[in-house]
């Protein structure tokens, strides 16, 4: 059934910033070229391309996938754009994995890109059509409402305080100081988070990742080609994805079941039975600080309600037993929606190769990257091994 084992052999990314001069195409090219160069390959070696980019409404460009095509290196190649909201960043390498694992192609270039800056008055406005137009939009919601509702439910169900959640923002922004592309790395304290502007209680300004422009890319190869290209391929051993419905007011928001299902699918494929022990490093989707905790539990890396305890005890620091988001995550590096998950995939790649420099987690052999998105409904998980 699976014809080829698939390896990641190169990675690249642009700076993540609030607004970039580059058009979306130019950012794709910068990331893709860097990934190819790092693998010692050229565009001629690439059989197919998969691109992930989130709502067309950000750039105001219809058919965004086709517009970005030439920058993605897909000129006259088999090409497809995939999109599951914020989950796209990990879904796109999964889609690339299908292309190679099926035996249909030997090499695949995978790119995640987002240009959020053209949308005014604020990119958040592009989300206005995420809501049900009849039952929700007339109430004039803003996007942060749903995060606040989910965060509050999570805090209430497990008795978690804001101080515990703020530790995640402190950790990730600190980790981002060592990431060369990071948009808002910083040394902050729990007090800084608790004193920041209240947007929609309990969400405050420093609980949230920024709006960003950016792109990231990886090159995938089948086993035979990977062995010729590099001495240190990083194997994709597990993939999983799962979606829930958009009836988000009809489910228990304190626990992301769809993330659990995606994780179980990936763990089964990778032969992992005890995730907290067998995963050496994890990049967990953190658009808000509480989401890192929420997802850790969905990923079975912590028991329900216990993720804050692990954070408090330092278990999730780079030198802890289960380092989470050594890159600095979305909170520190930035959140260009589809490229953010790809940044995490690149990070795991570099970690497993021992190339993460100051961010390096010692002895990282098995890594996990997870993304999440849409209307609180999609989980995407990828497991890699060196």
């Amino acid at each position, binding site marked *: 059934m699976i014809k080829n084992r698939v390896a990641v052999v190169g990675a690249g990314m642009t700076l993540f910033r609030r607004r970039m001069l580059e058009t979306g195409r130019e950012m794709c090219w910068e990331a893709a070229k860097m990934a190819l160069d790092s693998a010692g390959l050229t565009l001629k070696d690439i059989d197919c391309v998969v691109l992930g980019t989130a709502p067309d409404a950000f750039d105001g460009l219809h058919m965004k996938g086709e517009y970005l095509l030439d920058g993605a290196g897909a000129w006259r190649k088999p090409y497809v754009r995939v999109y599951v909201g914020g989950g796209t960043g990990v879904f796109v390498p999964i889609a690339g994995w299908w292309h190679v694992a099926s035996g249909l192609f030997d090499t695949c270039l995978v790119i995640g890109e987002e240009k959020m800056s053209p949308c005014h008055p604020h990119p958040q406005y592009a989300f206005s059509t995420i809501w049900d*137009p009849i039952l929700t939009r007339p109430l004039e919601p*803003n996007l942060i409402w749903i995060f606040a509702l989910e965060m*509050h439910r999570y805090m209430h169900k497990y008795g978690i305080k804001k101080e515990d959640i703020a530790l995640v923002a402190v950790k990730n922004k600190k980790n981002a100081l060592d990431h060369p592309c990071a948009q808002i790395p910083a040394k902050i304290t729990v007090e800084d988070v608790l004193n920041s502007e209240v947007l*929609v209680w309990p969400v405050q300004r420093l609980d949230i990742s920024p709006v960003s422009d950016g792109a990231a890319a990886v090159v995938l190869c089948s086993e035979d080609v990977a062995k010729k290209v590099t001495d240190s391929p990083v194997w994709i051993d597990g993939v999983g994805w799962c979606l829930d419905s958009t009836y988000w007011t*009809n489910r228990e928001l304190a626990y992301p079941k769809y993330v659990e299902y995606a994780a179980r699918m990936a763990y089964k494929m990778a032969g992992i039975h005890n995730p907290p022990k067998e995963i050496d490093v994890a990049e967990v989707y953190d658009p808000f600080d509480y989401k890192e905790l929420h997802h850790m539990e969905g990923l079975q890396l912590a028991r329900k309600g216990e993720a804050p305890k692990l954070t408090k005890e330092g278990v999730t620091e780079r030198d802890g037993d289960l380092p989470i988001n050594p890159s600095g995550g979305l909170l520190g590096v930035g959140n260009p929606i589809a490229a953010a998950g790809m940044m995490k995939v690149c990070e795991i790649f570099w970690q497993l190769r021992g*190339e993460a420099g100051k961010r390096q987690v010692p002895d990282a052999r098995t890594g996990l990257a997870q993304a999440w998105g849409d209307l609180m409904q999609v989980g995407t998980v990828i497991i890699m091994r060196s």
Partner: protein
Amino acid sequence: MSEKIKEYPGHPLKAEDFKEGKVLTTKWRPNAKYAWSAGIAVSRFLKELKNGRIIARKCNKCGRIMVPPRMFCEWCFKPTDEWVYVKDTGRIITYSISYISAERGRLEKPMVVAVIEIDGASKNMGILHKVEGVDIEEAKDGKLFGMRVKAVWKPPEEREGAITDILYFKPLEEEG
């Protein structure tokens, strides 16, 4: 990565670069207007709201009574079977307090929004709506979880068959 690569590509800009004309731009405002069909289930739901009632839909296979109503059950993947009137009271399952508007400006008065589990519908069948008549400090202390609330309706002549025919939900005074 960081060891082998010296420079990461990208030309970042600042907000001032746009204001000071340091960078060229093209502007556009799309003028797209929509007439979204409510569909069979929500058309009835809206009609009942005009009459001051909330209606749900039942699937006889899984037994769920669903709000908002839908013509097929997404769990059983079959058509739903009956209309069921539910109450206009409920319980707050989660809530938040917004200080910002849809356009990210500051609101004059903070607004409480909640997911309210409707009495008569299945567990966790909530709808999103506003809540008024609560103390903001108590709300921040987490005191509103599980609070019983009741819908406050627009006067009948002002209702138009919209979710806003319910103005908001307010705390329900229990009898003794």
